[in-house]
């Protein structure tokens, strides 16, 4: 008990999470009289998980794309395609952000990279400052459910460690995220259209010439998502192979053909992207140890029995889960939340009859809102820093978006078919 209090205090004081998780595992093993070198054996289990290869590769590909001018081309392309609609530029922002976040992982990179283009553009088009800020801040985590989201891959890896009856494959998770992610996008698009009509933002006319020229400019990026998604679902290559293809493709296009990223830049991009991967993998490594300890000592099933005594309906459980995850999402980034909380909560959710794939989507959908929930969502701070606005202004700006996405999360949570139908269709 005393050690738990000390550990919580250390978390609050900002100790690196991997040291906290490792310490709790070590204390557990020590109390059970298990040789402490077991922690290295557990970390070494990373080697037995083939899918993990996808994480460094996709992250690196995303970082290279982030260094190129792909984000500008993406905005131009979507603008030519959808800019003529009411709320056109807002829709463009939402879709471009979702794509970019899916490719680069929700790490705040979207707000930094795309915000620089979209924020001034929306301002010029006449959107209210607050709407503009709110839209860009909340879009910064909007691709979490779309492939090849690194968060989805990590969830799959953790769920596979739990020895559940149902299988949780990465390609099923990718499919499962599509409709819930689209739902979030559609609701936000509808809200943007409503607002822009209300504010009488002038619409632009559709320009076929611009579309053709934007299409030509993006000709090298357009095949990438088709190649990846098509390759995975035709069974032509596995997810980790798709990641290797993505790296190869992005390097050939951005370094050799377009020459927007130089060979000289690559070592720095590699280092920066692997610092992110290292931060995630070391947490995963030590948590393999703590998870194993939890399962050995049957903590999740005891937790389940305890909760079962107080909550008997699945519905109440889901409501409490949503509240818990929203608070969690404010404090923790998505990767550590996955690694720490999924091993504890997934067995309980399965006990209440929730499919592990559905649970993963609920988990990430909540986390996505947590990213910009006042007072401490991470993207609020990034946006406040990037756009030089007081944090309180961002609180006000993001509230409508938060409410809309909260509605989406409720639909996703209580309507499992939205998540599961594509998966079931495939099998």
């Amino acid at each position: 008990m005393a050690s738990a209090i000390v550990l919580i205090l250390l978390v609050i004081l900002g100790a690196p999470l991997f040291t906290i998780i490792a310490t709790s595992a070590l204390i557990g093993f020590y109390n059970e009289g298990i040789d402490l070198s077991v922690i290295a054996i557990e970390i070494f289990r990373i080697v037995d998980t083939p899918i993990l290869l996808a994480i460094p590769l996709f992250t690196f590909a995303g970082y290279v794309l982030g260094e190129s001018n792909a984000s500008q081309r993406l905005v131009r392309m979507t603008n030519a395609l959808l800019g003529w609609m009411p709320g056109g530029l807002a829709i463009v922002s939402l879709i471009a952000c979702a794509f970019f976040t899916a490719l680069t992982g929700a790490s705040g990179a979207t707000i930094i990279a795309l915000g620089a283009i979209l924020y001034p553009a929306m301002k010029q088009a006449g959107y209210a400052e607050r709407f503009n800020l709110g839209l860009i801040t909340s879009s910064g985590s909007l691709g979490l459910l779309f492939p090849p989201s690194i968060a989805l891959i990590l969830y799959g890896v953790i769920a596979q460690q739990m020895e559940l009856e149902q299988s949780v494959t990465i390609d099923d998770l990718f499919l499962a995220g599509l409709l819930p992610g689209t739902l979030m996008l559609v609701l936000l698009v509808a809200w943007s259209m409503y607002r822009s009509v209300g504010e009488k933002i002038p619409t632009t006319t559709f320009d076929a010439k611009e579309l053709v020229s934007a299409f030509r400019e993006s000709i090298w990026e357009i095949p990438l998502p088709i190649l990846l998604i098509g390759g995975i679902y035709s069974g032509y290559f596995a997810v980790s192979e798709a990641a290797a293809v993505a790296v190869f493709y992005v390097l050939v296009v951005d370094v050799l053909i377009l020459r927007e990223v130089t060979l000289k830049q690559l070592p720095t991009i590699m280092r920066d992207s692997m610092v992110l991967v290292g931060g995630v993998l070391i947490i995963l490594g030590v948590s393999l140890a703590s998870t194993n300890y939890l399962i050995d000592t049957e903590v999740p099933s005891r937790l389940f029995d305890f909760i079962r005594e107080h909550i008997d309906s699945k519905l109440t459980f889901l409501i409490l889960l949503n509240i818990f995850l929203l608070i969690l999402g404010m404090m923790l980034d998505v990767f550590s939340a996955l690694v720490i909380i999924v091993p504890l909560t997934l067995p309980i959710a399965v006990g209440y009859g929730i499919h592990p794939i559905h649970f993963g989507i609920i988990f990430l959908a909540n986390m996505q809102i947590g990213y910009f929930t006042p007072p401490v969502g991470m993207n609020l701070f990034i946006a406040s820093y990037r756009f030089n606005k007081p944090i309180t202004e961002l609180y006000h700006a993001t509230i409508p978006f938060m409410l809309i996405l909260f509605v989406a999360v409720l639909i996703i949570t209580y309507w499992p078919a939205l998540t599961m139908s594509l998966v079931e269709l495939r099998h």
Partner: protein
Amino acid sequence: MSTTNNKIISFINRIEDGLLVLILTSMIFLAIYQIISRNFFSEGLVWIDPLLRTLVLWVGLSGAVVATRSDKHIRIDVFTKYLPGKILPYVQRTVYLFALLICLLIGWHAARFVYSEYEYATVAFAGVPAWVTALIIPVSFTLIAFRYALLLISPEIKKPHMDVKS
């Protein structure tokens, strides 16, 4: 800190960065080679897949070492943002000391694990002994501990950090 020390540290920095780049580059080449040979010559080399899985561990832990250099490990910094500037260095030092001790402890037990793999002469794949593939665990945790020791001596006093990995 004296200039010789700085030179040594920047030398170590370059070795770590170089290793990271080398591992990732070989991963990319091996993974692409494997796809091409599997699809066009209908068979890949059997040792590539286990090697790639080992390299994921190596790249991850090396990345974690480099992350420690600039104190970029994932943490909850909600509360430290509001700490008064006077207290912050003490809090940071406490945290660094704790991290240093834990990483040394893990490094030590990982070394014992590597030694037992060596004694049992376990083979990982294609004749490569398992202790060699696991060597990165004690090495990286020791290096991380070393980094925390450096931070402990001269902490990077940061503004409420814009935690990002971008």
